């Protein structure tokens, strides 16, 4: 456990010390600003109240989860694996007394930490902006739903991230993995539109999984079914990625 903790702290520190995270934070803030401009524009233009203080964070989440978050999750996942292989820095940790399974898990946990931190930062800021600029409709239940919506979004995003991690351990070039991830993202979205009955199989369609948690009557059956599909993705790609990582000669 001690070496896993050391590896996890190191991986988080490495992610946080890179400029990508700062850019991700700035762009995430931009999502909030864009959301607010949209709301203000519609309010003033049409005289409507489009988003209350508790709806605003959900509007921002829908913007974030379909644009900036998957993009930066992909960049961070590629950096953590392909980046370290290509810059030859992977061997720094691999020659320390930490097993490959612990290092692999620590790296994935660090990616999850980045995603969660990004989500929570945007949630807190959008809540604050919602309270300041939009009509006040504060309720503890509403806030709890927002918190839940942001937290459960971690699961579909990480399911997608694990596909990228697997590709990073199969392909040598980080650039190839990045473009493949974008193609995959677009293809999954297109396929879920063309074959809506099978949309659940294409993991990106589940980025809006939080909606199921945010309705008055939670559709438990659908929620559990989608959770198991995502769990299947996680188990498959975590295992396949680890197999490739463990067998890799440096």
């Amino acid at each position, binding site marked *: 456990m001690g070496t896993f903790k050391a590896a996890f702290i190191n991986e988080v520190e490495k992610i946080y010390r890179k400029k990508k995270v700062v850019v991700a934070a700035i762009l995430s803030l931009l999502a909030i600003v864009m959301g607010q401009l949209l709301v203000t524009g519609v309010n003033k233009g049409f005289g409507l109240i489009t988003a209350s203080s508790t709806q605003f964070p959900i509007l921002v989440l829908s913007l974030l989860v379909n644009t900036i978050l998957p993009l930066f999750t992909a960049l961070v996942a590629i950096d953590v694996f392909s980046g370290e292989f290509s810059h030859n820095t992977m061997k720094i940790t691999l020659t320390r007394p930490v097993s490959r399974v612990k290092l692999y898990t620590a790296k994935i946990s660090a990616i999850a930490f980045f995603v969660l931190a990004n989500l929570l930062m945007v949630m807190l800021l959008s809540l604050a902006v919602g309270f300041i600029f939009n009509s006040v409709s504060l309720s503890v239940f509403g806030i709890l739903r927002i918190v839940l919506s942001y937290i459960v979004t971690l699961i579909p995003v990480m399911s997608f991230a694990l596909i990228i991690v697997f590709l990073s351990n199969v392909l040598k070039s980080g650039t190839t993995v990045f473009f493949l991830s974008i193609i995959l993202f677009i293809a999954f979205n297109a396929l879920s539109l063309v074959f809506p009955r099978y949309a659940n199989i294409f993991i990106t369609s589940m980025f809006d999984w939080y909606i199921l948690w945010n309705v008055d009557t939670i559709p438990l059956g659908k929620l559990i079914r989608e959770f198991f599909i995502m769990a299947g993705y996680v188990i498959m790609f975590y295992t396949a990625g680890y197999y490739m990582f463990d*067998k890799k000669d440096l």
Partner: protein
Amino acid sequence: METVLEISGLTKLYKNGRGIFDINLNIYKGDVFGFLGPNGAGKTTAMKIMTGLMLPDSGDVKIFGHSVLTEFEKAMNKVGCIIETAESYPYLSPYENLKLFARFYDDIDNSRIDEVLELTGILKFKNEKVKNFSLGMKQRLGIAAAILSKPELIILDEPLNGLDVEGMIEMRKLIKMLAENERTTFFISSHLIHDVELTCNRIGILYNGKVVNVDTTENILKNFASLENYFVSEVGKNGNV
């Protein structure tokens, strides 16, 4: 004599037909072992397998009795190494780099980090970003990282790469100091034969992926004028230089 490193039947074959074949070697406590061989002989391959960077086709490496294949953490707990090139994170300072490495070991405090930076002569650059370092400075940092945890076995692949004459002399002194004062065992590969002659007390020669001979430096120098002559002779017996 306590066996620190035990290599048995180590084989790794590449697609191009090169590799290492059935290497058997024992390194004992207090040895400063020089691993000599021409380019492409398989030195780095053997060292990569020893440190878990590569899997062998067959055979095993045991460090302090623990197999690197099945008990990696235990095997590497008292090992420091530089393999092929001394790597560090360029966006961090030497101090931050060592702080990261220190987390894998018990009882390494900030004063130990300063101590190894001082020993390798880069203490005054401790807060500069590594990306601005020369090759020699990166090599010094690599050596600082290798000795950080006070390891009992240090595996160094071409440790003098990129160092100037002053740096080479300092490194040689450092290796001798650690071997004499701390009884640290060294496994060093180098193409600088003269340096190996001055630093190592046992020599192994690897040629075409096979260990062709192992002897003490003292014995070798009794029979040959220099280590270079011995190397040429041993390699000559097994092929052309």
